[in-house]
């Protein structure tokens, strides 16, 4: 079954059109990456799916159902998002408990305490962090909280906006391992935006390369590993990544 389907998606901010006829199909349980440089429109696609960039035309279908333009409650139980900056995505005056419990309160789900501890456990956060404020946590711990928040409503699809680019490499490894395990355990579908091809290679099954608001190429992860990308721009991106790696 198709988890997420985009058809001829044109997204604009004001008078500027950011993406041009973006079409994608992502299967249920798949981990899909959108790669490109800044300004390629990859984050905007994620925002449009989430409902944070409501100015679009075309079609977004989530689990077969067409999506409206705004943010709605039913959608929030299916699809959640993890942001790039763990320092900006947590409310500075709310404890971990309040941040995680909020989702349950909004949707009137009971058994709050048990659920909060369960999700904290599954993202590898010790119970002692439950009543801490964000400024008492490290970057990696904050990102775990952000992932936990996204999982509170047991969604099917996670939108990941450069979830590790603000983290140190050793912490990045922990978060990537965590994401991989969560996907396996909870049968999640990932749509990740990143510029880091090695991360794609570790975490994803397929990728789409974006440039100036258009999808240039959709490829399988094995093609990336073998260096078999067809478009010259994709190969260029790959070479830069490879030149970095020793």
């Amino acid at each position, binding site marked *: 079954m198709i988890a997420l389907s985009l058809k001829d998606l044109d997204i604009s901010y004001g008078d500027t059109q950011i993406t041009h006829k973006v079409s994608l199909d992502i299967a249920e349980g798949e981990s899909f990456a959108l790669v490109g440089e800044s300004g390629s429109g990859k984050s905007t696609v994620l925002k449009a799916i989430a409902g944070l960039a409501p100015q679009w035309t075309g079609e977004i279908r989530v689990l077969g159902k067409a999506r409206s333009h705004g943010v709605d*409650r039913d959608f929030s139980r299916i699809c959640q998002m993890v942001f790039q900056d763990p320092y900006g995505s947590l409310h500075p005056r709310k404890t971990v408990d309040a941040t995680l419990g909020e989702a349950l309160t909004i949707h009137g789900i009971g058994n709050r305490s048990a659920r909060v501890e369960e999700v904290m456990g599954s993202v590898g956060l010790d119970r002692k962090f439950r*009543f801490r*404020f964000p400024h008492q946590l490290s970057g990696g711990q904050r990102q775990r909280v952000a992932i936990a928040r996204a999982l509170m409503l047991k969604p099917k699809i996670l939108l990941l906006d450069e979830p590790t680019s603000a983290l140190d490499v050793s912490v990045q490894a922990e978060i990537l391992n965590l994401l991989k395990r969560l996907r396996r355990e909870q049968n999640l579908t990932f749509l990740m935006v990143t510029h880091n091809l090695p991360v794609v290679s570790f975490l994803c099954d397929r990728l789409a390369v974006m440039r100036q608001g258009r999808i240039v190429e959709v490829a399988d992860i094995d093609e990336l590993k073998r260096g078999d990308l067809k478009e010259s721009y994709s190969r260029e991106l790959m070479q830069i990544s490879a030149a970095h790696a020793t």
Partner: protein
Amino acid sequence: MAMLRDWLIDDSPASPMQARLGRLYRIFGALMHNPLAVIGAIIIICLILAALFAPWLATHDPLRQALAERLLPPSAAHWLGTDELGRDIWSRVVYGARITLVIVALVAVLAAPAGLVIGVISGYFGGWVDRILMGITDIFLSLPKLILALAFVAALGPGIENAIIAIAITSWPGYARVARAETLTFKNSEFIAAVRLLGASSLRVNLGHVLPLCTSSMIIRVTLDMAGIILTAAGLGFIGLGAQPPLPEWGAMISRGRSFILDQWWVATMPGFAIILVSLGFCFFGDGLRDVLDPKSGEQR
């Protein structure tokens, strides 16, 4: 005591209550390290104590006239002297603290929440809502405070209640501006986006997430404005549109003392000192609060 302290600064609180109290304790500790804030706090506490215990602190009935003892200089019997009707100035200043405190508290309770709500709504929704609300705010802001208050009191009739209403009406626009600016900076932050994605309604986002972030700057602003409010109230009292005689309001007292300023300086000076002292107290405390609470300083204590 040591146990309580350990419980408060515990890095892994066990309940929301402990987390909140721990945060307050840290803010309190930071405030105590700021000498000016401590001085300000002491002055404000003195004001509150004076207001609460006025009957015990006063040496005379503030309203009792004794024409035989009029315009006496400060002495053992009358610590700050007496006024033109023979009333004890010390007792009047002490009772005046009650009036000042009531004015300040009521204005804060009326104006700050109104400004906060208007500012947050205006900032969060933007568009025509913002334009209308900020247009009204701008009109109020463009008129001098005292003149506007004067106009209101003139329309409503003189008296302490009307003075309070007039001052409240003139001070909310400033708070609305602050709240709107704060809301604009938080509105597009990722943590607000995250709450919206959880399905929270606009009301919930605003009340539960945006508003709490604006309150600390609001508290700072209100504390710093207290001095201005006291001065405006005193100004209204001075020109006879605030508290009416024989109420011992400080501004009105200065006004009466003006006629004797050259020969009996204490009549006008003593309430004047009280005004200066209390205004300074609020300013110092407000500055200290700003250093501690300002969200831009990151709260890394």
